[in-house]
């Protein structure tokens, strides 16, 4: 049973205002998550805006320094005091997928340049191995290398570009891929293409995912574990089906009741004259 993700007493405090009267905002408040499994898993972190779910993702990606506490992925301490993984080992352990695919690539560089750089610099492959790895990663997300070579961001749809972004993250075969709201910018009708892709990559490519979202329905659909966050604190954590079908915490229940589903109506309809 490998420790896929462990956070111990993770805190992040932002100090606002001048030295005289400063307000403290607790973006992360003593987060303790422990995920152990012998096969790859998808862990979802759900919560409203300002709940701290993005700060958690940024802390694990070391884009934000935690105020205290530690985070471990597999056997490497990735963030906080005593972080062991540095440089290329860190990049090989954790890879991100960003929210807006059009912002994730520079407008002035061909999209596949990032894939080749990841292959050569992070995965440490030589030129020919890199080309194969890129082609293989693109195939895994249902794209052909020819369709991508030398193209710029304005020649793709949102869905296609996000799949290229996923392919790039796959190349160094990281222990954990952290996807921060990966489908919120994509048309509702085409989100499931990406969501199903995450599940396929978990099962076939053996990758674990941390899926950050405010959309509980997609979290329920693909995740093994779910963490519910509110105002910086972890209010509930457990197997997804269990947490979602009978939530223990009142906030989780409030969230679940507020989702506009197509099953039960909030207000029963007066019998409509045909």
């Amino acid at each position, binding site marked *: 049973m490998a420790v896929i993700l462990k956070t111990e007493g993770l805190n992040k405090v932002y100090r606002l*205002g*001048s030295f*005289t*009267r400063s307000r403290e905002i607790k973006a992360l408040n003593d987060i303790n998550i422990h995920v152990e499994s012998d096969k790859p898993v998808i862990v979802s972190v759900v919560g409203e805006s300002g709940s701290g779910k993005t700060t958690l993702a940024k802390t694990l990606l070391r884009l934000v320094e935690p105020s205290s506490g530690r985070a471990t992925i597999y056997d490497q301490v990735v963030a906080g005091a005593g972080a062991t993984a540095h440089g290329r080992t860190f990049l090989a352990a954790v890879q991100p997928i960003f929210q807006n695919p059009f912002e994730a690539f520079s407008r002035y560089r061909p999209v596949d340049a990032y894939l080749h750089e990841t292959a050569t610099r992070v995965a440490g492959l030589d030129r020919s191995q890199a080309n194969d790895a890129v082609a293989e990663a693109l195939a895994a997300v249902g794209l052909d290398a020819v369709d991508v070579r030398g193209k710029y961001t304005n020649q793709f749809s949102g869905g296609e570009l996000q799949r290229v972004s996923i392919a790039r993250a796959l190349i160094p075969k990281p222990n954990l891929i952290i996807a921060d709201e990966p489908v919120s910018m994509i048309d509702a009708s085409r989100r499931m293409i990406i969501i199903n892709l995450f599940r396929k990559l978990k099962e076939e490519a053996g990758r674990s995912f941390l899926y950050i979202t405010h959309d509980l329905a997609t979290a329920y659909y693909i995740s093994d574990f779910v963490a519910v966050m509110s105002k910086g604190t972890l209010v509930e954590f457990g197997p997804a089906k269990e947490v979602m079908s009978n939530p223990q915490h009142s906030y989780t229940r409030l969230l679940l009741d507020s989702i506009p589903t197509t099953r039960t109506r909030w207000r029963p309809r007066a019998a409509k004259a045909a």
Partner: protein
Amino acid sequence: MGVLQYVAKRVGLYLAVLFIGLTITFFLPRLLPTNPIDAYISQLQSRANGQLTAEAIIQLRTNLEELYGLKGNLFSQYLGYLNRVIFHLDFGPSFTYYPTPVSSMILTALPWTLGLLLIATLIAWVLGNLVGVVAGYFHTKRAATVLEVVGILLYPIPYYILAVSVILLLAYVIPIFPLSPTFPVGPLTPALVGSIVYNSTLPALTLVLAGFGWNILSMKALAVATTEEPYVTFARLKGTSNWTRMVRYVFRNAMLPQVTALALSLGTVFNGALLTEILFSYPGVGLLMRTAASSGDYDVLYGAITLSIVAVATAGLVIDLIYPLLDPRIRHR
């Protein structure tokens, strides 16, 4: 809380600017090869057509150094300089008009400069921004591009060309203004004020034209961007009139960055004012500097520069402190 923090930050910058300004004006002349004392002595010699004996020169050198605070090592001079300037506003006596203190000469010239500068800049700012917001708000219409062209034609023209062209047009070709203006001195009788205004119309016009083009172009760009903001679109969908939307929605928001831009541009505008004064021989700090520079009266020069830095920095601070009054997002955190 927001305003306090904003003001503290801005005053901090103000003090830093003053400090750096004073330091530059102190070290700059001392780093250069020529020593002002030698220049003074050579001037005195020429005046006394060579009868000064060797000891007289040595004696002269010591009390000149004493007079202009050039005694001791560089650092103690620096402290002495700061103490004199900040606490006593004392720049030593003027060399050419000995013994009148430099500070009194400058303080008589400064109001002229600030008067001309602030009035002209204000007119240029207000007019330029009004024309700019109209050009920006109606940027899809043909007529608005005419306003923008005015800005494009005016903006690149440098101060000295504007000044000379204004002299050429309004004092030579159509001589309604004096070719070389004279500024009477004395008690402020209405007639005196009238002649001062008459004589300073051309320099003021130059400064207004110089600022006018820049304000049109920058406000037009801001207005075009602001018109696409959601709150302006929603105002349109509420059925508000063009006038209300242009003034209360677009101008009220687009003018905020223009206030900061004005504060920042004061340094450059001040340069323009100095140059205009010299070309129109307008009795301000600029003219004072020019005559001091050509007659080698260094202390008047350093005093004028230090005070102009203080004046510009203070004007900038005042404008920046007005900003929170215009932007509720800073007033109410």
